[in-house]
């Protein structure tokens, strides 16, 4: 205001000299009335006391050894250290593909790629204890950053099309499980049982696997719910409402313990896979409701137009309705991914070594750590907070980019 006033001498003569901006802002936002001034003082006081207590605890009282001694445990759990390169290779693949997606699609993928590069660079730079402290690990994390840019360069080339990138992702999702677990009886790659997997690795597998596997199922359920065939419709409604009506804990419990009773006795399913089945079933019901919202948003005229140009029901759904519906639900799916990511902690109840469970076992691994629950759980909370906050930040940008929510 003061700047614009000074360029116009006439109005500057009329106006009294304006007080400094900061004071104006303070008076308008913090001290605009008596009750508000009191509130402000109370707020400043409580921020001071709470903030001081928290900082004093974090920097002087807290004993961070269970976190700093061996951070690798939080990342991969008990994954055999001589085989750890397989986790690293998977990460490199994901980094490269993220870079390629950035090069190909730009926009929101740029945010994701930047976040990934930034996160890995931070992991590469900060000093850490245990196996994380070794030079090789630091170098490895830092190498991911140029790999992302390499992917970007490749993705930007004209001859690389979207289907290349999509194919790459599909390939990685098929290959990574085998890379991590081993092929066949372990002659080519030694088998690493999933019971040894842990930490953020398992958390991500459950969340990413859950959302990806649930997606086709959810789309089918949503279409089924709108079907004109009563049998299919009733089945889909029963499935969706039945799953949404019970807590995730009960579904995980069912898929881990009860499901075995409903299947042929010689069919043994891996514990992690059973948990993943539970997450998938749970997530599918919510995906279905999100997709249903997208389907309802497709104008009826689109379907009539598709019929008019001679498309049959199947073609109409696949070529006209779904592409429009799915585009509209992307932000909702991202939101669902974030809550699924948080919900992976519940897998602790069926003894999966996800991040929270790793924290719990680290506490019990050393007598000196037994009483350090606050440090360990606050660290895990901080990890989740940062990751979820970044994801919801990206999803807000995605919403703006897609122009959804603007009416």
């Amino acid at each position, binding site marked *: 205001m003061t700047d614009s006033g000074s360029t116009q001498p006439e109005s500057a003569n009329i106006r009294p000299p304006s007080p400094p901006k900061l004071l104006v802002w303070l008076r308008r936002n913090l001290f605009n009335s008596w009750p508000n001034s009191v509130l402000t003082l109370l707020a400043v006081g409580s921020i001071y006391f709470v903030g001081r207590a928290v900082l004093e605890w974090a920097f002087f009282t807290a004993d961070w050894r269970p976190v700093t001694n061996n951070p690798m445990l939080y990342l991969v759990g008990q994954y055999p250290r001589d085989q750890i390169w397989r986790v690293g290779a998977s990460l490199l693949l994901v980094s490269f593909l993220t870079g390629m997606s950035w090069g190909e699609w730009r926009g929101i993928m740029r945010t994701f790629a930047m976040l990934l590069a930034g996160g890995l660079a931070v992991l590469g730079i900060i000093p850490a204890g245990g196996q994380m402290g070794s030079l090789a690990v630091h170098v490895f994390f830092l190498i991911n950053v140029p790999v992302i840019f390499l992917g970007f360069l490749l993705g930007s080339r004209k001859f690389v099309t979207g289907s290349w990138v999509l194919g790459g992702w599909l390939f990685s999702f098929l290959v990574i499980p085998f890379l991590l677990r081993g092929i066949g009886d372990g002659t080519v790659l030694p088998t690493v049982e999933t019971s040894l997997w842990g930490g953020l690795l398992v958390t991500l597998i459950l969340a990413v696997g859950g959302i990806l596997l649930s997606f086709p199922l959810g789309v089918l359920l949503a279409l089924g719910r709108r079907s004109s065939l009563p049998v299919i419709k009733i089945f889909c409604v029963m499935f969706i409402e039945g799953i949404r009506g019970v*807590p995730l804990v009960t579904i995980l419990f069912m898929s881990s313990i009860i499901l075995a009773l409903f299947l042929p006795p010689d069919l043994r399913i891996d514990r992690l896979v059973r948990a993943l089945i539970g997450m998938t079933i749970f997530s599918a019901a919510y995906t279905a409701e999100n997709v249903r919202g997208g389907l309802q948003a497709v104008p009826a005229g689109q379907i009539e137009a598709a019929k008019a140009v001679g498309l049959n029901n199947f073609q109409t759904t696949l070529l006209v309705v779904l592409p429009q519906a799915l585009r509209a639900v992307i932000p909702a799916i991202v939101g669902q991914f974030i809550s699924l990511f948080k919900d992976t902690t519940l897998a602790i109840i069926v003894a999966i070594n996800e991040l*929270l469970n790793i924290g719990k076992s680290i506490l019990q691994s050393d007598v000196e750590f037994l009483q350090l*629950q606050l440090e360990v759980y606050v660290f895990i909370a901080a990890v989740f907070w940062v990751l979820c906050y970044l994801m919801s930040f990206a999803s807000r940008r995605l919403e703006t980019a897609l122009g959804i929510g603007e009416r």
Partner: protein
Amino acid sequence: MSSSNSHRKSLTRESAIPLWRDERALTAAAQVISAIIFIGALIWVGVNLLEAAKQRGLSLGFDFINDPAGFPISEAVIPYDDSYTFGTAFLVGLLNTLKISIIGIVLATVLGTIVGLARLSTNWLVSRIALAYIELHRNIPLLVLLFIWYFAIFNKLPPTQESLEVPGLLYINQRGLYLSWPRLTETGSLFAVSLLVGLILAIIAWIYLRRLRKRSGHSTYYAGVSIAIILMSVVLGLALSEWQPLWIDTPVFEGFNFTGGLRLTPEFTALLVGLVMYTAAFIAEVVRGGIQAVDLGQTEAAKAVGLKQMQTLGLVIIPQAMRVIIPPLISQFLNLTKNTSLALAIGYADLFNVGRIMINQAGRAVPIFGMIMVTYLIISLITSLILNIYNRKIQISEKSA
């Protein structure tokens, strides 16, 4: 559909449509096939289950319900010890779930509304603090928050001898939270009955007189009459109970422990605090969204027709905001109720936790698990039924308005 029918009629040789292109035939076939697949899958699962049950010697019946449960439950609303039946144990778990859900819903609504209003405050600092609270809770898994509350805070409280205390009112230690609590005296029940009757009469009078006002257009003083009825019932109740309706039960330190007062176990308190604070963050966003959804023009219009500030709030803004707030609010209530199942991780005896112990004790995984699922489903269905009725009511009033 209609377009394809007319299309079909316009064809000169209707019988020429081959069966595999006839929409009616295809529809019917799809129905039959899907029904066969669905029923076939059910039969397959059922056969597998019977097979597994026979192999492992599991029983699928519900006859165990009347057997003694044989395990203790740390807290119960109704009388219970390990000689009671499995059925009673299940009921104890259900009541514990309902207890923490109802108390949690009330507290979370209050806290959530306060935070939501604080978020809308014109005071920048207050609004930022509310935002920090919301962001802090929304981005951390509830289970991690519960672990912090229970393992890192409530389990680390000082022993009973060194309780944190507000003397005569509140004592907090490892064994839980001890509160001074008003309890009814012997004659107090008369007071309670009188108050209850007064409340019911007041509500009836309120509704009747409001309707009368709407019909006749004359003032009927419904608020005054209702308050007068309540005041009269209070005075009557006090007189009936010889002016001593309540006494305060204060916790007293005796020997090694507190006696008297209202004791909340650490498990209950940690779960309650965690659930309330977590859900409040979501409710705050719902409340904020609802209030922001009311157009500013509504306030201006209300002022223009001469409504006072309180009337604007009560008659114009809140009713419209409620329309937006109630549906997501109820789904938050449902989330809170479902999230009580995390009690398992910190050892509060809720429905799921008790059910799991029952499975271990009775060895009837399938029937007990079925009972748990169906119970949660019934709670959810009742809630969504209420929501649907409410939504319908709102829609009707919208049309008539």
